[in-house]
């Protein structure tokens, strides 16, 4: 996966590029908004990581221009501004996700991979399949090895998100944001308990576990 990092803090950009390279992604770095716009215009990137506050052109303007030009490459905004207003402004400008600085690196990788994946599965699906697991989005039915699994509405949403991002790590914060739509981190392990409930329903009676815990990052659903 090729990633463009548009970030004026050179050291942070280097560290990010190094980490992403270790996760197997190729990175390019632009040090300001205009250079970023030019680089992104060249195309060929799967995800853009864009800082919001930069010299010459800020991130929101940059993404607005790109979207105007019809470029739909997924964008992850990075920002020190964490207020809901700022988040909404970023998403309105055409950003696809928003990560507030400072962040854990696992969080960044998980989100970047989630964005790239979203692009691949562009078509509207009515049935999701991950290995033995099958989810009928219209009938609201989940089966594993043709055995129906009874899920609460929130558990259904949680599993849908995990299935859409199967094979990737998703963080607790991502789950809280995307499934519950809360933008704060609880001090307790609320998400872990929801996951263990879901796990007991989809994994307990089967020979191998699908819902795995990724140390230091979060969870991953594997076929």
């Amino acid at each position, binding site marked *: 996966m090729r990633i463009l990092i548009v970030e004026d803090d050179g050291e942070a950009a280097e560290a990010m590029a190094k980490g992403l390279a270790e996760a197997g992604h190729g990175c390019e770095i632009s040090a300001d908004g205009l250079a970023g716009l030019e680089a992104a215009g060249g195309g060929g990137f799967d995800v853009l990581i864009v800082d919001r506050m930069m010299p010459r052109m800020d991130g929101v303007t940059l993404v607005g221009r790109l979207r105007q030009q019809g470029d739909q490459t997924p964008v992850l905004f990075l920002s020190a501004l964490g*207020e809901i*207003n700022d988040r909404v402004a970023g998403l309105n400008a055409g950003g696809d996700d928003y990560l507030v600085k400072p962040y*854990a690196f696992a969080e960044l990788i998980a989100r970047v991979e989630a964005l790239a994946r979203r692009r691949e599965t562009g078509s509207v699906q009515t049935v999701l399949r991950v290995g033995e697991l099958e989810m009928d989005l219209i009938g609201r039915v989940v089966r594993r090895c043709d055995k129906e699994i009874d899920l609460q509405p929130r558990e259904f949403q949680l599993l849908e998100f995990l299935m859409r991002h199967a094979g990737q790590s998703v963080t607790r914060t991502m789950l809280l944001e995307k499934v*519950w739509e809360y933008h704060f981190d*609880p*001090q*307790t*392990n609320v998400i872990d*308990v929801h996951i263990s409930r879901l796990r007991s329903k989809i994994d307990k009676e089967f020979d191998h576990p699908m819902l795995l815990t990724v140390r*230091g990052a979060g969870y991953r659903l594997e076929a």
Partner: protein
Amino acid sequence: MRLPRLLRTTPFRLTLLFLALFAASASAFLAYIYIATAGEVSRRADAGVSREIQSLDAVYRSGGFAALNQAVIERASVNHGFLYLLMSRSGAPISGSIAQSPVRDGEGDDWASFMLTETDADGAVIKRPARGREERMGGGELLFVGADVGESQSYVVKILRALWGAGALVIVLGLAGGVFISRGVERNMASLNGVIEAVRRGELDARATLRGAGDEYDELATGLNDMLDRLQRSIAGLRHAGDAIAHDLRSPLTRLRARLEAAMIEADAGRADPRAALHQALDDADGVLRTFAAVLAIARLEAAGDAPNQAVFDPAALAADVAELYEPLCEEKGLDFRAELTPGLHLVGNQEFIAQALANLLDNAVKYTPSTGAIMLRVRRRSSGDIEFSVTDTGPGVAEEDRASVIQRFVRLENSRNQPGAGLGLSLVSAVARAHRGGLELDDGPGAVDGSGPGLRVALVLPKNG
């Protein structure tokens, strides 16, 4: 060149402008009066002269030259304002009250304006304006009749002089008034400018004094004072937030640094695996990030005054969502969790903040309530109309004397030291309450039962209209 300060003030400039306008219109007015009155004076004189010529012409027609001569002599001896001169065909004077015709040759019967020179009783020479014309009689004799317009002319001049004088007086008084008004305005502005100057020097406490007149200066002063109050509050809020962030992050970072240093010494001595220390440091850093996020949220809320993005929502629905998030956690810990949510209520507020506040209250309740305990989340409307969110647990509770302090940041009571968390939970809830102009109340829970309790009841009370 710099004008004296007073002359540069706006009221004085307005005065000057007004006086200039006044002078221009007064001049136009005077010019009109002069033309109208002076014109009228000569018209009246002309009419009188024409009538006199007609009547003398009638005398000439009926009585001939002798009768005319007689009439001229008679009339000239009686001073009733007219001047007469009867001349022969060649223009030689025959009789009359003046020695020579003021009408020069070649002017025909045109009107002539001239000065009449007289000597008064004291021997002083007086020149008076006069008008007149010549008429040739049937026999070829020339008759000149003139009128002394000096009386009425000088009257006009007197009126004009009076008007000019009055104009000058108005201008002088106007300038004096302008100076007076400018002084007054300047005095009032000076106190306001003094306040602004003081604020510019950094004395944010400076305030304008009201004169109690209720006029626009008082209005301006009130506005200035209000603005400074708001500014001071928000600067104080920011300063406080900055101090708080510095303070709140210094201790966990110091801890992290100490741990890394200790790990390095251990690793150098070959006594421990540095990987364990790295994991530990990572966890510590995550803790710092969480603390940072919480401190920032509190600081922002405290600096913002009222919570942003307020909207109408159903508090029961919001509480149900948060309850749904925490219910499995309670079950896992063996806590009896119940929610009593009054439906159909409306509240104005920031849903994100309020949800976070409820999550913090439930976090605390789950942390401090021993297993087999119970937690109750309740939403209800008080008789006052305020909306109350409350979380009641059967944990150890908080002693009455500690209740005020647990709301402050980083205060963790002695028996909670072994629990995770940075001690920011209740201070965030309290900041959310303040941002909605509400309050936070701490009470005993259901009381001591079977060695546990007395429990804690925390209520977030928000006014109905946010």
